[in-house]
């Protein structure tokens, strides 16, 4: 039985575990029907031309983990941004771990999707926002069908959340192969500000597949700062679907740091429903081995006077494959749009591959849109300069590559993340750069 059939047939079993009377359940039923019709994406689809899920989907994933493992904070501390105070929503094998988490209902809601889906007091928010912007493609539908758990964050009007929120998913390897489908909903009210850090971490060599969907709503003048840290084991694959709906004058920034995992696919979609919106998406990808990272971005400019900025840097070693598929759509009404898209790559090994496809679809005339894309090497004269000053080749290379990816970090507003990422970059490049910021 292949994974698709298994998932479709286990939907009935899943129905026993959730409240089938809620309106959400109708959405689930529709979604599983849609998934049954559409199935998993294949390379024949334009958006999946360079990424094949076959090697991942052949695993016999268990859909419902039987037993959840317990974790000690000291064992997993390294995966937290632990040197700052933060709210935490932690899941172990898809189940909420209360002793690792720190949630709140004090003025803001930082809690669980399962609670939000079942408790009547959240009904209004769920009715208004749940599954409103997620697309109807196979993977998102699959997640919608099995949506039960994840993070639920609701920030009311005029609130600056002073602590960042960390969402971390651990998988412990109690199952031979585990598939997780977290579902997050983040609603940020007018004039509010929130910072969120998301991480998926496998603690085992057993294969895991995470198919995550996050819906983010940024209301008027809200500021959303989102960081995705992807430094998973070789056994773990991640399909991350993020949908962001922005209202006028809001600012949303998503930084994606991809350093690990077997196959990582980031579907990042921005919809600008209002004027004077700013959307930023940046990423650093440094991978080797047989890793595969695919950034698939979409910015939909619907109304006038908006901006979007994309900046993705990639360094690819060994047999790794990097994909960038960025799309900017500017609708007829979206005059005075400024859209910029940059994708710069360095191939370190002859066996590494880069496929990049920066696309513009423009229907308005008074716009400034540009994209630039490069694939190249380190500057030989810069290398020579460093080496002539006594810096060994490896370090010199590391320094230059750090410099290459560094400007992505400029817009990171949490210093601890900056220093953490710097360290990770140094570690990935195999050098001790000695920037302890």
């Amino acid at each position, binding site marked *: 039985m292949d994974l698709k059939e298994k998932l479709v047939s286990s939907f009935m079993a899943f129905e026993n575990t959730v409240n089938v009377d809620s309106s959400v359940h109708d959405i689930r039923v529709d979604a599983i029907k849609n998934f049954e019709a559409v199935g998993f994406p294949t390379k024949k689809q334009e958006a999946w031309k360079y990424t094949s899920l076959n090697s991942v989907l052949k695993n016999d994933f268990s859909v419902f983990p039987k037993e959840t493992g317990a974790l000690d904070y000291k064992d997993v501390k390294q995966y937290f941004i632990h040197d700052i105070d933060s709210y935490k929503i932690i899941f172990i094998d898809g189940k909420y771990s209360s002793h690792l988490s720190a949630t709140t209902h004090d003025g803001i809601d930082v809690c669980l999707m399962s609670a939000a889906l079942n408790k009547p007091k959240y009904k209004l928010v769920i009715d208004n926002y749940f599954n409103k912007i997620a697309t109807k493609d196979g993977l998102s539908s699959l997640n919608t069908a099995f949506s039960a758990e994840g993070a639920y964050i609701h920030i009311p009007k005029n609130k600056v959340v002073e602590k960042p929120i960390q969402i971390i998913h651990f998988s412990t390897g109690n199952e031979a192969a585990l598939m997780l489908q977290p579902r997050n909903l983040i609603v940020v009210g007018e004039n509010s500000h929130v910072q969120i850090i998301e991480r998926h971490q496998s603690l085992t060599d057993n294969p895991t597949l995470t198919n995550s969907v996050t819906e983010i709503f940024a209301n008027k003048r809200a500021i959303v700062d989102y960081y995705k840290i992807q430094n998973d084991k070789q056994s773990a694959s991640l399909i991350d679907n993020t949908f962001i709906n922005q209202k006028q004058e809001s600012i949303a920034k998503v930084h994606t740091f991809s350093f690990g995992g077997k196959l990582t696919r980031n579907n990042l979609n921005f919809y600008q429903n209002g004027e004077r919106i700013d959307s930023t998406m940046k990423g650093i990808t440094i991978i080797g081995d047989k890793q595969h990272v695919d950034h698939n971005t979409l910015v939909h400019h619907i109304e006038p006077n908006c901006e979007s900025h994309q900046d993705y840097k990639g360094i690819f070693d060994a047999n790794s494959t990097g994909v960038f598929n960025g799309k900017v759509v500017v609708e007829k009404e979206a005059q005075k749009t400024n859209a910029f898209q940059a994708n710069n*790559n360095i191939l370190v090994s002859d066996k590494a591959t880069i496929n*990049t496809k920066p696309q513009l679809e423009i*229907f308005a005339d008074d*716009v400034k849109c540009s994209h630039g*894309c490069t*694939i190249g*090497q380190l500057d030989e004269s810069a290398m020579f300069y460093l080496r002539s000053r006594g810096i060994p080749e490896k370090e010199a290379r590391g320094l230059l590559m750090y410099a290459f990816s560094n400007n992505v970090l400029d817009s990171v507003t949490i210093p601890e993340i900056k220093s953490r990422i710097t360290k990770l970059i140094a570690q990935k490049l195999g050098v001790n750069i000695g920037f302890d910021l």
Partner: protein
Amino acid sequence: MSKYTEDDLREELKTKEYEYGFYTDIESDTFPVGLNEDIVRAISKKKEEPEWMTEWRLEAFKFWKEMTEPEWANVNYEKPDFQAISYYSAPNSKPKYDSIDEVDPELLATFEKLGISLDEQKKLAGVAMDVVVDSVSVATTFKETLAEKGIIFMSISEAIKEHPELVKKYIGTVVPQKDNFYAALNSAVFSDGSFCYIPKGVRCPMELSTYFRINQAGTGQFERTLVIADEGSYVSYLEGCTAPSRDENQLHAAVVELIALDNAEIKYSTVQNWFPGTADGKGGVYNFVTKRGLCEKNAKISWTQVETGSAVTWKYPSCVLKGDNSIGEFYSIAVTNNYQQADTGTKMIHLGKNTKSTIISKGISAGKSQNSYRGLVQINSRAENARNFSQCDSLLMGNECGAHTFPYIEAKNKSAQIEHEATTSKIGEDQIFYCNQRGIDTEKAIALIVNGFSKDVLNKLPMEFAVEAQKLLEISLEGSVG
């Protein structure tokens, strides 16, 4: 030999008798509509082709039957019914009009603007010719000059008969029969086209042009062009014509194959100005073309195109850079107005070491048109030190048109250096204001700015062509600014 100028031509024509020569062909006879194996055989028989050619066509037809029409292009149009087309129509020797007064005045006005002489106008509009200046005689003179150098330039059906070894060796090597839906269709039913062979070390003394053998090929519906530049040779080839042509065939599926052997250079320039349909989007030509060139060692292929016509264009002149140190170039201007749709670009496949490619694409959309650039730059894992530079700029006029960019870049070699940049913008109001201020009216100002915008490409066109192309751009965009 010095360049053949218009004065030389006039001189020659004075002394030369008008020759009817060429038109030995049968009166117009048309095959029944539809396509099947018998039709393919019949076309081949009509052309008195050898057995291997018939087989080759049948093979292509077999592939075509298995294929489906491509859907991926960013264009919308009503699909042609392939069984409702007649696949063979011998050139009609009867003129369409008896006198120039019967020709559509709008068409004549355009000719006037392009500065085309009265005689040429008649020729292009299909008026009966009794004046001495006929391209037939010109073609004959040209042929003699070429023959001296050992250059073969003839229609492909002649070449199949006279130089079967060359045709057999090279046809389908760059664009195989099963390459794509339209290439397969063309391979099965191509009616005619051009064949050109430049021998080793020869530099072709003049620009070869299909325009000069128009009486034989006409604008064939399924044209097949094969250009072979042997080692160390050079040829510049012009295709098409700036004059608007009203062709009754709605579907055009041509195939062009270029082969540049070691150290050879081919420059292929196209100006396409087929009927784009009326201002409200009715009619117009569907232009689905497969063009590809193969570069051996140190060879260079350069594509230059100015696309202003056709209702739907679907065209990707490509270079396969197989040999080390080979160079591929692509310069394109695509203008769409009213309801035109263009999906055009290039493919640069880097296989050899130290290969270089340059892509300059300028898209101008006006009216309700859609203009897409779609390109592929592929660096193979063995293509050491490959270099690519791409630039795609789009200019939008009015807010009902669209400009799209779909570049695909695939790199498998660490020494590759690839740069791609694309911009989209409109004509700056301050630029227009600046011109207005100096007494240049808005329409002229726009023409000026558009010319500047497309200069990089226009510069690559052969001189005579460039002047006409410039005027053509102006005409194509006429009335697009309110």
